[in-house]
């Protein structure tokens, strides 16, 4: 824990004490505005680690470079040095990675681990609040089962960070959360420190099917759009109320605090630029409509997810600085997923837009490198030139950018979190596996050391407690 965090905890606990004490004098103090504490703050703490030097690996930096003959030094959870000559600070563990490859930890921007866990059954399927087309008030993190064995399987696939999203049944599905992939006893202890929240929105077939079948709006794509716009109009009014309140306070007046509304609070935070919009949207024309809605209400769409038709509007995505998160070749499960192109990611990338490979799958998340390899193969075969050093960005730095954490992680650069995967071969070979995974400089997985193969509570007593399922 760093000093700031300690101070924060002291401050918060003092505040609690004061508030508790104040409660008895409630009547006297009632005029004073009550400051709302941050809800569900991250309590994530990096695992203590000794310095590590990794030598002789082939390195894909995540910034587009491939390096060899270079060593990486990780100290206190950060990448301290990437250089030809690195002196051992003394206590460092030295790993000779001859023949092995080093990449940033992989990042999946679209996951439902914990909210749709394994085993999957009605009692723990908690990813969709199917009761209203606008459930911006719900937060995916409150559904996360931290003992979902899918977290540790994803870790064995080199995934160090993931965004857990609500499902796509609603126009506004709720808040998503970015987690460090270290299963903990509480979800707060997995929350990526400082990562912004996201808002899951959904276009197309899912919302109109779910509600249309109940003879309720939206029953069509046009009602989807009316639904988004009506909600943003309300959110603008709500935001204005609070802005006026703040202004009056600043003038020294004593205004009544407007009543909080969890749904509108999330939308208002989007309008203020504090929450990032992640928008499930398959079809080209729908993405273009969503971009116009964002302009009308002056918010930003960070990324379209499942953007099967992104290649059709790649120039529009580039122009509007919107990322597209895509699959390799999933298609056909819905009509809006019918126009699959195997080179989609490479085409979006070639148009200068931010391209991301996402999985939305507890199996896919274990093989993000393989999903990327298939795209590299398809693209190079049909004349797009994609190098491994460039393609790794689709599952590292570009993904970090979409989550608003690109300053902290997503590439091997000095000063960044030491979220690192050492592969036992070329990461784009089907035969290669993540041999060691580091999160904030601490080794959290080792292919050859059972003591570093984590098992969730669920695994114990059901499988070999030493992680035999892997």
């Amino acid at each position, binding site marked *: 824990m760093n000093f700031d965090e300690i101070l924060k905890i002291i401050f918060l606990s003092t505040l609690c004490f004061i508030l508790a004490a104040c409660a008895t004098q409630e009547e006297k103090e009632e005029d004073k505005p009550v400051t709302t504490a941050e809800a569900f703050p991250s309590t994530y703490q990096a695992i203590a680690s000794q310095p590590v030097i990794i030598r002789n690996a082939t390195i894909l930096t995540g910034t587009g470079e491939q390096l060899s003959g270079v060593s990486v030094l990780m100290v206190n959870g950060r990448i301290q040095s990437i250089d030809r000559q690195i002196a051992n600070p003394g206590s460092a563990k030295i790993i000779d990675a001859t023949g092995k490859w080093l990449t940033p930890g992989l990042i999946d921007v679209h996951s439902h681990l914990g909210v749709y866990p394994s085993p999957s059954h009605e009692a723990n399927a908690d990813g969709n609040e199917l009761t209203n087309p606008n459930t911006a008030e719900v937060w995916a993190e409150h559904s996360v089962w931290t003992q979902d064995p899918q977290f540790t399987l994803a870790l064995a696939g080199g995934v160090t960070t993931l965004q857990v999203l609500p499902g796509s049944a609603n126009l506004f599905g709720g808040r998503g959360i970015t987690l460090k992939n270290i299963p903990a006893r509480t979800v707060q202890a997995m929350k990526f420190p400082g990562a912004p929240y996201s808002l899951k929105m959904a276009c197309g077939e899912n919302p109109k099917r779910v509600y249309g079948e109940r003879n309720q709006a939206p029953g069509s794509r046009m009602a989807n759009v009316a639904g988004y716009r009506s909600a943003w109009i309300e959110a603008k009014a709500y935001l204005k109320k609070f802005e006026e309140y703040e202004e009056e306070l600043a003038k020294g007046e004593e205004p009544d605090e407007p009543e909080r509304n969890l749904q509108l609070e999330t939308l208002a935070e989007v309008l203020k630029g504090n929450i990032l919009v992640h928008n499930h949207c398959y079809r080209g024309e729908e993405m273009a409509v969503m971009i116009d809605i964002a302009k009308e209400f002056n918010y930003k769409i960070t990324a379209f997810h499942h953007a099967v038709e992104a290649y059709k509007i790649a120039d529009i995505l580039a122009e509007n600085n919107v990322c597209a998160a895509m699959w390799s070749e999933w298609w056909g499960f819905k009509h809006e997923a019918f126009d699959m192109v195997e080179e989609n990611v490479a085409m979006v990338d070639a148009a200068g837009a931010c391209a991301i490979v996402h999985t939305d799958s507890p*199996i896919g998340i274990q093989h993000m490198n393989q999903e990327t390899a298939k795209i*590299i193969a398809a693209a190079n*075969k*049909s004349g797009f030139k994609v190098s491994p050093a460039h393609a790794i960005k689709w599952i590292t730095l570009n993904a970090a950018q979409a989550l608003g954490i690109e300053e902290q992680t997503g590439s091997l650069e000095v000063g960044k979190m030491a979220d690192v995967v050492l592969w036992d071969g070329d990461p784009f070979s*089907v*035969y290669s596996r993540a041999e060691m995974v580091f999160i904030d400089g601490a080794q959290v997985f080792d292919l050859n050391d059972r003591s570093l193969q984590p098992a969730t509570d669920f695994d114990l007593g*059901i499988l070999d407690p030493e992680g035999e399922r892997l």
Partner: protein
Amino acid sequence: MKQIIYSFLLLICCSVIHGQEILIQNVTVHTQSDKGTIENTSIYIVDGQIEAIGARLDVASDTKIIDATGLQVTPGLINPYTALGIIEIGAVRSTVDVETDDEMFSTSYNIAPAFNPASSLIPLNRTHGLTMAIVAPDSGHHVFAGQAALVHLRRSGDLLIDRSIAMFARFGARAGRFAGGSRAAAYAKMRHAFLDTKEYVENSDAVMRGNWRDLSLPKHDLEALVPVVEGTKPLVIDVHRASDIRTLLELKKEFNLNIIIVGGAEAWMVADELAAENVPVILDPMYNLPGNFDRLGARMDAASLLHRAGVKLIFTALTTSHNPFLVRQSAGNAVAHGLPSTEALMAMTINPAEIFGIDDRFGSIEEGKVADLVIWDGDPLELLTRAETVIINGELIPMVSRSSRLRERYRNLNDSTPYIYRK
């Protein structure tokens, strides 16, 4: 008359196609026969068949020559558990024929009449080297799903080359639901069906005359089960839990059935018993989730463990309805987790051919066999490798699909031709 002319033209066109002679030169051949892998050789294809394999071959003068220097050839890939041609778009019900809820049918439900050879899934899968598939029904209401068809993904002629190659069924939690809430009831239902089929076989005249007690299945369903109880038609059972697999092995012994396990998440736990009973497993090596309480023991190295115990393996890809060609990725992952690569290739070629009894024509590169071949631009199991050329029934397959045509249409967004005229 019009029809006659049309048929005549068809005959000409197809005989031309079949008459095409092809020589693949300078290639590494994974024969999947006892000849193993042969380097720097040639394959000569005549009339849809493999005519000869060897370094120096005499060929007809108009033979199409393919120089495959540095490339590798395998037999066409076979996936024995797909929904090809019976599903176009998952969420568009009118295009989905996978299962029936009609209680009139169980074992007599045959998927063949639903198969659509014009499905857009087929060209895509062909370009990735899939040349043959079993199209299997799923269970809508009964432990028996019905009869599956064998489909040869050639471009001409009838693709359905066996309209009833196997009976599919289900056991475990989901079968229990179909049988009133318990897997024990599903077991009883299955066992009674076999007992009644035997009774039907022995007394069919009386049963047909109506001069017999009521049996547990209608006559058409009993009739469909006859080859299963006689052991001539494989019974492919979707089952995962180890205890359920053991139960099925008992049933196999009691009725002398020809059982194949599909799914088999916990099959590795009973690998020795499966090997002793000579029961093969259709496995997706990538499906390692404890996705439900029947599958808690799923693991990535299951293929390797089963192989070491002597169980014959076939691979499939369980997470995709539209891309059964991804069986190749499943095979590669099995190798990454300990399976020898020769075995992984066999599990997509000669093993399914042998197990489903079509190895006289398919599954390996040998003289006299049907010319279903894939030329790969690298290691056939690697994901960075692509199919360079696909030959089915001796015919070169155009490497075109809806996907590739959409790619070409949108390749250059600045093209001055409005996109709807780019084809």
